[in-house]
């Protein structure tokens, strides 16, 4: 994977409720904190020039594949859905894996081919990886265990 230059963006909203995004690029090697600080300064200057209101600003760091490997036969809309428990009793996190391999599902029982085999070595490897640091759900709760997994076709 090849790193690209970090990018910044700001979302503005006008009096009619319509929104627009400004995007730009930062120097390579910029850290997240330095990038956010620079964007905050720029946002101050831009807000003075716009009648719309800045509602959100962000910094992104990306990597792209230098060569694109050939894909297998499963379409991207065949999704493996894994439900994770979190550090809070009633909060859950759902992970969706596109192009889920059919040989990672259970082969016996009434949900054969639909339920993910949570004992498959590669599935166990992923689950163990996700319940370790640093992964969290959208509000910052740690992932603790996989509760269920199934395959569905997204429309």
């Amino acid at each position, binding site marked *: *994977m090849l790193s690209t*230059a970090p990018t910044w963006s700001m979302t*503005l909203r*006008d*009096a*009619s409720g*319509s929104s*627009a995004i*400004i995007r*730009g*690029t930062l*120097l390579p090697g910029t*850290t*997240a904190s330095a990038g*956010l600080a620079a964007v905050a300064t*720029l946002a101050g*200057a*831009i807000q003075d*020039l*716009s*009648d*719309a*209101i800045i509602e*959100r*600003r*962000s*910094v*992104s*760091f*990306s*990597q*792209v*594949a230098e060569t*694109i*490997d*050939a*894909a*297998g*036969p*499963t379409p*991207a*809309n065949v*999704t*493996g859905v894994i439900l994770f428990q979190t550090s809070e009793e009633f909060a859950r996190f759902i*992970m*969706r*894996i*596109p*192009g889920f*391999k059919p040989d990672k599902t259970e082969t016996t029982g009434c949900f054969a081919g639909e339920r993910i085999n949570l004992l498959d070595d*590669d599935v166990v*490897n*992923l689950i163990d990886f*996700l319940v370790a640091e*640093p*992964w969290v*759900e*959208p*509000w*910052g709760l740690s992932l603790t265990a996989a509760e269920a997994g199934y395959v569905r076709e997204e429309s």
Partner: protein
Amino acid sequence: MAFVNAPTAVGTIVFRDASGSVAKLQIHIPFGTLAVAALAAMDALRTALLALSDCTVISTSVTYSEVDNAPPAANAGSRVEEKGTFVWRLANGLTTSFQIPAIKDSVLTTSGAVDRTNALIIALDTAVTGAGAIFAGRDGSDITALFAAYQKFRASTPNMLPKDR
């Protein structure tokens, strides 16, 4: 009005299948995670996911966002279709640009050019090109000077049309 960190940084992995269709997976990382560490973790996650997916991965990214938790109302009559286009010269001789939506008429000349003597425009120029500024073109080349600036309008999308028309 105050900008606050989103609860987490968002990691995105873009997959592509054999037909060329694209799908994305999102995962979350504590906001304080350094970008270098976050990207390394995303790369390791990519490897674990590729064992379960027939798709190939074309990119990974991590985004850190701040949101205004009490945004004020926009100025009456503001429309994002009215843009201030700012074209910047890069150190490698090429240019890059961005557009400021709902540009204020007070920073424009009668011809529709941006008034570069306006103090607010000078402040923007300083923020982008001044000492210590870290803004660049898409290829990573440093932005060195303001090259051109003018008013420009874009067509309204159906969602931008007045809701009470």
